[in-house]
């Protein structure tokens, strides 16, 4: 990791760690949000010319890894993506928290100045000032206060995932060349958060195994437990590596293949990792599991968000099958392309 990016990651990590240890809150952490603004994080992916920080997805991945590691309740991932897409579409960057809607039922009206329809499962919808959504051909910005109705809902980790209904609401819109980009970037952000949460669950499990005694010795000294945690570690490593490679690809250009592969690989890691983490913790009763669940409940939620296993396996499989014997040529060309630029 470049020195500059390492500093960014470390700073974010400290910020989120402090937020977690000082106040264990459910819902939106407004004070922390203000601090991220001071660090320029919500607009990290927007160009400097537009008032952003001009960062890339390598930077974003490092920050979101820390976000996922500490399970901090703010819509940072969504705001980063919204800022990038808004800039791409030539829309003015809104300030307050901006969330992202990838499940949209509805359409623009009146030459793109009005929107009728529903935004479903919007992360932190109730706390967002604006929501960026993609409809065929267009990127749309909507104000939360223009919604006719807002239904509160949550994922497994109690993170808000709200439904908003708009009825002839004012909209600002710009051109969107790629209708799938919002979903892909959301999947990529979730990969980074998953990597961080997996790492946190691993740390908690290893630490627990080192201190917890059973049958006269620390459970981490039993070969069966060691081997399980080693496998757990390998899964975490795979998720982290896949995520970093997909972030690198997104920094360079079209990353649709790499994001599909990374999200699928992360999802596969979640199954083994969460089950091992809870098994290792199992003997303790629930006190410490409270802490573990900050990671695992998010992992279970994020496995579905941004595309579940079946969805990405289908996309990736169809893509590979269609190219048949070009598999190896395609696979290598993606990384070789880097060396051509």
């Amino acid at each position, binding site marked *: 990791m470049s020195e500059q990016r390492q500093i960014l990651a470390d700073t974010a990590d400290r910020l989120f760690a402090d937020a977690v240890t000082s106040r264990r809150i459910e819902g939106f952490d407004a004070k922390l949000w203000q601090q991220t603004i001071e660090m320029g994080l919500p607009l990290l992916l927007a160009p400097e010319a537009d008032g952003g920080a001009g960062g890339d997805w390598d930077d974003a991945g490092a920050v979101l890894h820390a976000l996922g590691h500490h399970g901090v309740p703010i819509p940072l991932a969504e705001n980063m993506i919204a800022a990038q897409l808004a800039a791409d579409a030539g829309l003015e960057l809104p300030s307050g928290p901006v969330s992202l809607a990838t*499940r949209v039922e509805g359409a623009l009206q009146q030459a793109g100045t009005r929107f009728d329809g529903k935004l*479903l*499962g919007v992360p932190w919808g109730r706390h967002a000032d604006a929501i960026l959504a993609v409809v065929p051909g267009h990127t749309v910005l909507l104000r939360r206060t223009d919604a006719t109705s807002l239904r509160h*809902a*949550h*994922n*497994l980790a109690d993170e808000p*995932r709200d439904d908003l209904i708009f009825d002839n609401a004012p909209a600002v819109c710009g051109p969107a060349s790629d209708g799938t980009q919002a979903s892909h970037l959301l999947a990529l952000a979730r990969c980074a958060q998953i990597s961080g949460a997996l790492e946190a669950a691993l740390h908690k499990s290893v630490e627990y195994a080192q201190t*917890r*005694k*059973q*049958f*006269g010795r620390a459970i981490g000294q*039993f070969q*069966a*437990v060691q081997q399980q945690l080693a496998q757990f570690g390998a899964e975490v490593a795979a998720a982290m590596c896949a995520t970093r490679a997909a972030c690198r690809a997104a920094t360079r250009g079209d990353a649709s293949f790499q994001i599909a592969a990374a999200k699928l690989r992360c*999802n596969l890691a*979640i*199954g083994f990792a*969460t*089950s091992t*983490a*809870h*098994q290792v913790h*199992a*003997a*303790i*009763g*629930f*006190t410490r*599991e*409270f802490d573990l*669940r900050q990671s*695992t*409940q998010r992992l*279970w*939620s994020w*496995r*579905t*968000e941004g*595309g*579940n*296993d*079946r*969805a990405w396996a289908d996309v990736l499989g169809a893509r590979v099958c269609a190219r048949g014997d070009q598999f190896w040529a395609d696979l290598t060309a993606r990384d070789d392309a880097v060396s051509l630029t």
Partner: protein
Amino acid sequence: MQTFHFDPVDLPPGIPAFRAEIRAFLAREMPRDYPAEQKANCWTVYDADFSRRLGERGWIGMHWSKTYGGHERSALERYVLMEELLAAGAPVGAHWIGDRQTAPAILRYGSESQKQRHVPRIARGEAFCCIGMSEPNAGSDLASVRTRAERLPDGRWKINGQKIWTTLAHRSHLIIVLARTSPADEKNRHAGLSQFLLEFDTPGLRVQPIVDLVGAKHFNEIFFEDCIVDAECLLGTEGQGWKQVTAELSLERSGPERYLSSIALFFELLRVVGPSPSESVRQAIGRVTAEIWTLRQMSLSVAGQLARGEDPYVEAAIVKDLGNVFEQALPPLVQALADDGIHLEQDSDFVRTLALLLQTSPSFSLRGGTREILRGIIARGLGLR
């Protein structure tokens, strides 16, 4: 020559009629508006009325002696009752432990007065029981128990210590406590433990509920603070607590709950995907079906052997291990399959059941011995230890 014994069972002739009777009862008596996700966790759902109505029909303590309020029905009839209750997701939490563990332990080790006093009440669905084995920082290593029982000069016992993991203790009447009655011996870590049978209104016994992973209060901490009990509260033989508990745990291993405790999720999946789902969903359902059918055959076979008075110790451990693996694998499998359109924040029976089980299933393997312990038993059965 044969490694394992899984003879098929021929169910006795009365079973179809009995099963029909249970189903009619459930159709009538199951609570209305009973949330689907509770069905997937029904052995912890407390419903004292429901348990009492089961007791009235003679469906608690089905195979215990009539002398103590039992009904002397066959073990296979009891098996069928249990699988029907679980498959229906009936709220059996109130009497579950008493029927399955506490009363059998009393009948096996208890004094005549303990049997007469407690077992009939349990059978009537009036006294509910819980388990007092695990302690904070002890987990499945029961030998490290630190709760102490000290014999007083007048023969009574003074208990001090703390228990955890006791399902529904705050609504129970009886508890069997495992306590140390002589100092720990590093060479024989299992010596010096004894069991005590206590009523919950004993002075010095205090229950404090713990909110668990999914916000429910199934678990508790129980504190014993100079809790003084009569000599006759000792259950079985002083110093034999370890042996008695081990036997109890093995009773815990053989039932249909080994693979049925969260079957509601599979039923919900079938409902949600409808009669002709896509190929990959269909095949996944086929594989799960093969596993369920096999587990039921294995579990039935063990029940049949127990009914014949045999002790299929290793086979029971196998059923439990495979059942655990199955129950832990199902929720993530379903999550990976569920259509893109099915989001967890949706307010549907299916989604709530899935959400609950994703969170609770990783600790299923705790029930009655961890995975490592079970596989240790199997390995020993193979001659490896």
